[in-house]
């Protein structure tokens, strides 16, 4: 039975539990000896929750652990003795065997996989049946337990409330746990990488050429400083030189000068920029801006200028970030009390004096937080740099030269032929971890700044 159908059956059992419990509660009610503490429907929900939640929880856990158990069982089988000891190859053959088990006419498979297919199919279906059976038993047992607890004075209402609260709690924990999970997996792979390459070589080395790695000293060609520099240069310098002034100025215009009519169409239009898929920005950077930058460089007297300049990627990234800076700045300018503005105007200050001397300083923490969030987004941005920036890892201050970023290198390292335990591939995880930690720190700082700032006005 597939998972979808099983969930349906469990929900059906839940419905039965609901009806049974409600009917039972109603019988107590009619007995008239004592008033029910909770409404009959609440008893119903209590029983339904008991019937549905335990088996679903079990199935979630089971679907996580059963593949591992299936594989252990298969590997213990003598028929699997011919499998390679090498994990990557072994998993590949098992995956093919599984495909054959599901569809006997699948072509182009390893002969060994074809021979193992019946075994794999049988083992998988055995574990699937075990899961189904346990889930069904759990549903019956837990549902029956809930129904036996129904008494006039049983507080089903508070129990339902608590269950709801727990459900909501779990829902909100999922995002947090996912973040943690990402961090742990990155951390784990990075540890393997640092087993091959000393962390100091990686963090402080200035030579990056993952294509040519000396097996004896992989650290010598995996120094990430040029990538960090390129990321910083493109994302935090060039992009911000575009995004901060334009974002700030548009926020000032929108909050202080624009008429309500202008604001009504201009703000959504600006925010639409944030909804453009980054791959479209990538096209724009690679096909329009980059050639223009090259011509510009040629005009300046560099006939061999690269068309993959840091400037092209940075400029387009800056444009992409404008709405972020603008909307954060807009919010924090709007949060400055009108009394401030009136106070300044009543002193005889002009609108622009009021903005530059009172409003912007008062809104500065919010603006700074917006910029930090924008930087963290810019340095994590991938598509634009993949399409417009080069792969050449150079440390340069010349924006017309090519530069590369951490994200672009991660993509390069993980696409194409990849062996999953070479220093070259593992370097991608170390780069990812570094990026993750930096953006996380930027976000934490930004959130703290925003929080402090909010307290100042409330």
């Amino acid at each position, binding site marked *: 039975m597939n998972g979808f159908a099983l969930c349906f059956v469990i929900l059906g059992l839940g419905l039965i539990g609901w009806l049974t419990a409600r009917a039972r509660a109603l019988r107590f009610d009619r007995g008239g000896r004592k008033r029910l503490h909770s409404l009959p429907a609440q008893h119903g929900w209590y029983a339904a929750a008991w019937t549905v939640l335990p088996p679903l929880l079990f199935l979630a856990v089971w679907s996580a652990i059963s593949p591992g158990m299936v594989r252990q069982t298969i590997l213990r089988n003598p028929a699997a003795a011919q499998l390679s000891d090498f994990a990557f190859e072994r998993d590949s053959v098992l995956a093919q065997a599984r495909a054959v088990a599901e569809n006997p006419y699948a072509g182009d498979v390893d002969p060994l996989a074809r021979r193992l297919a019946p075994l794999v199919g049988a083992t998988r279906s055995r574990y699937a049946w075990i899961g189904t059976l346990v889930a069904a038993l759990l549903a019956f047992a837990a549902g029956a337990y809930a129904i036996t607890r129904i008494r006039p004075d049983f507080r089903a209402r508070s129990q339902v409330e608590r269950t709801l609260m727990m459900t909501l709690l779990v829902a909100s924990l999922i995002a947090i746990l996912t973040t943690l999970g990402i961090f742990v997996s990155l951390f784990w792979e990075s540890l393997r990488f640092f087993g091959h390459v000393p962390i100091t070589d990686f963090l402080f080395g200035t030579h990056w050429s993952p294509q040519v790695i000396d097996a004896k000293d992989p650290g010598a060609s995996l120094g990430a400083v040029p990538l960090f520099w390129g990321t910083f240069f493109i994302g935090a310098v060039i992009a911000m030189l575009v995004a901060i002034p334009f974002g700030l100025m548009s926020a000032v215009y929108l909050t202080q000068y624009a*008429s309500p009519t202008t604001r009504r169409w201009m703000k959504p239009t600006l925010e639409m920029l944030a909804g453009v898929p980054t791959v479209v920005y990538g096209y724009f950077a690679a096909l329009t801006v980059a050639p223009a930058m090259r011509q510009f460089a040629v005009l300046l007297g560099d006939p061999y200028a690269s068309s993959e300049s840091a400037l092209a990627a940075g400029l387009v990234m800056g444009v992409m970030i404008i709405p972020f800076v603008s909307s954060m700045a807009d919010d924090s300018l709007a949060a400055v009390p009108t009394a401030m503005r009136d106070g300044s105007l009543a*002193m*005889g*200050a002009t609108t622009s004096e009021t903005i530059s001397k009172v409003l912007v300083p008062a809104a500065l923490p919010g603006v700074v937080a917006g910029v930090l969030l924008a930087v963290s987004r810019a340095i994590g941005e991938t598509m634009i740099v993949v399409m417009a920036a080069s792969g050449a890892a150079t440390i340069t201050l010349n924006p017309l030269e090519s530069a590369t970023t951490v994200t672009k290198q991660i993509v390069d390292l993980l696409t194409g032929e990849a062996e999953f335990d070479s220093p070259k591939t593992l370097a991608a995880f170390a780069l990812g971890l570094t990026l993750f930690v930096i953006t996380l720190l930027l976000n934490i700082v930004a959130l703290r700044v925003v929080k402090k700032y909010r307290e100042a006005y409330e």
Partner: protein
Amino acid sequence: MSTAFTPVSHKMSARDVSVAYGDNQAVKNVSIDIDMDKVTAFIGPSGCGKSTFLRTLNRMNDTIPSARVTGEILLDGENIYSADMDVVQLRARVGMVFQKPNPFPKSIFENVAYGPRIHGLATSRADLEAIVERSLKRAGLWEEVKDRLSDSGTALSGGQQQRLCIARAIAVDPEVILMDEPASALDPIATAKIEELIHELRGRYAIVIVTHNMQQAARVSQRTAFFHLGQLVEYGETDNIFTAPRQERTKDYITGRYG
């Protein structure tokens, strides 16, 4: 209606002033004269148009896009709503203190120095410091803050903040000071200090104060104008208004019949 007082050239004169927010007529045909060395109080129930009218005197209604002002207001004989009036200059001459203290999120010194800086009143740092000290002294705040001028203005108590705002307003040496319920957000002790301050400032400026508190109007003002439903009902010497009002509506209001 209008009432003429002995000095023939008034500091400010409003002639037939009406203010509308969209279709809502907030102030209707008000004519009134304001004189130097006097405190003029505007009283009346909430929504009677007294604050709106006050804001026309330094054109603060300009900041509300839907507000429309008709009639004329003269400052030393010059119409402040004429096309060649410089609003920035006007507001330097007619300062304003708001209902809620609104110091800028800057230091005490910078709050007071703000006006002199933007209007270029000080030629040197020493000059600026002298202006700040003089203004804070006039606002009766100097003794309390002289040792912590670099502290934030927003860290002061409510009453101190309001006196800081008064110091900020007088730092640009205005001729008229408008106060929009300046003590309504303060406790009684802070209120008493503000009222005392208004007494001391009377000799230098023409002061117009909006208040919903009739005792306060009686205590601080020499002249009182009673507004009701956007109209100026009665204007005269404070003593006369409170002891012998000529209009029935004024009498009803000051005796607490409504409001």
